[in-house]
């Protein structure tokens, strides 16, 4: 029985999981959730994710939420097929993947997601962008990317000279960030830029990027 992923093809957290599923070549069904009419905050969906957020993965009677827990599950369950995302046969490399997954989760995400929300998502919901929030987070993001620039001048990818889940987790928000007026934060850092061009040209991402638009025409 195929996996079921509840979410939307333009949602950052859903696409984080979609990218992983495509890297592993796993069969799945994407079940749309009508967030624009609040389906994700209603009881049937809340029984899948009590926090009322997409995505949710169903694998038989196992229900999981939190995109990074879902990708970790998929990468582990299908570790012998598709791209090796977690280096399960090499404990040292596996540990370094975990480090840079936490860097994305703790340092990168907290800076980039408010920028994407304020500039792209909020306006679609009728909210005016808060430039002060954007500016503060651009500064934070710049400092994080300075560390990435140094790291990526030593290794080709974040955890080492191998592509991993740590790189993959950056894809959705970076994709949207590159459509904002501040893409120079990436483009002005040559190693980060090269890393991003490499990562974003992977076939798994080509399969999902076409649907990654909020229809705002920008």
């Amino acid at each position, binding site marked *: 029985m195929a996996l079921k992923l509840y979410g939307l093809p333009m949602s950052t957290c859903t696409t984080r999981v979609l990218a992983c599923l495509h890297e592993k070549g796993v069969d799945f069904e994407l079940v749309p959730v009508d967030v624009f009419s609040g389906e994700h905050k209603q009881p049937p969906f809340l029984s899948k994710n009590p926090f009322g957020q997409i995505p949710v993965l169903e694998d038989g009677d196992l229900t*999981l939420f939190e995109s*990074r*827990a879902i990708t970790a599950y998929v990468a582990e369950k299908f570790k012998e097929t598709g791209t090796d995302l977690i280096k399960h046969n090499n*404990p040292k490399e596996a540990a370094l993947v*975990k480090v840079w997954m*936490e860097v994305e989760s703790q340092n990168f995400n907290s800076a980039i997601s408010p920028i994407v929300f304020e500039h792209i998502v909020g306006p679609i919901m009728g909210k005016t962008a808060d430039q002060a929030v954007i500016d503060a987070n651009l500064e934070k993001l710049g400092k994080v990317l300075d560390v990435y620039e140094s790291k990526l001048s030593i290794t080709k990818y974040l955890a080492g000279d191998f592509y991993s889940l740590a790189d993959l987790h950056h894809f959705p928000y970076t994709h949207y960030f590159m459509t904002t007026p501040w893409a120079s934060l990436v483009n002005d850092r040559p190693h980060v830029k090269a890393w991003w061009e490499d990562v974003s040209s992977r076939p798994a991402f080509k399969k999902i990027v076409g649907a990654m638009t909020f229809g705002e025409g920008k």
Partner: protein
Amino acid sequence: MAAIKVHGNPLSTASMRVLATVYEKEIDHEFVFVDMRAGEHKKEHFLSFNPFGQVPALEDGDLKLFESRAINKYIAYEYADKGTQLIYQDSRKMAITSVWIEVEAQKYDPAASKLGWELAIKPLLGMSTDTAVVEENEAKLAKVLDVYESRLAQSKYLGGDCFTLADLHHLPTLHYLFGTQVKKLFDSCPHVSAWVADITARPAWLKVLALQSQQ
């Protein structure tokens, strides 16, 4: 000589998160004090362990790691046969535990750590509390605790029947928050309160607090 070295500061929540794991697993280790007041964590030697200049960092032989939750996962898997089991070997149970490990990191910690900073740490440093930040994050934390209350009504620990990293990761911020007005948010959640009482009474956690009081 201990193969494992923990570089950190016993007042730092992230350092305490790793120390709790090291004590639970009963691993021989050396604790290397990082003098944050002297800015040691931003200097070149420490930056070679963590380029973000944050404690803690771990050395295990020639492996250098940072980010407390990554360090803890590494220890829990690498030393699975020692001390307390902090992960499940069963993949389904571990998948569910991973969900709640992410919940701590993504939902609980952002609000809890801001409240700890405003209400517990800033006063110690002679800085004034931002009441707007406190109000905003108390509201966020209350909503998270509502979900925890439902979860812990059906499960003894967040991941399932056993204490795991999903529970442990909360300990350092819980410790700071319970000394502040935020405790009242927990008092109104009986299952959450019982869970806090249980996990904060663990001998390994008491060892972390003893180390802290020695500094």
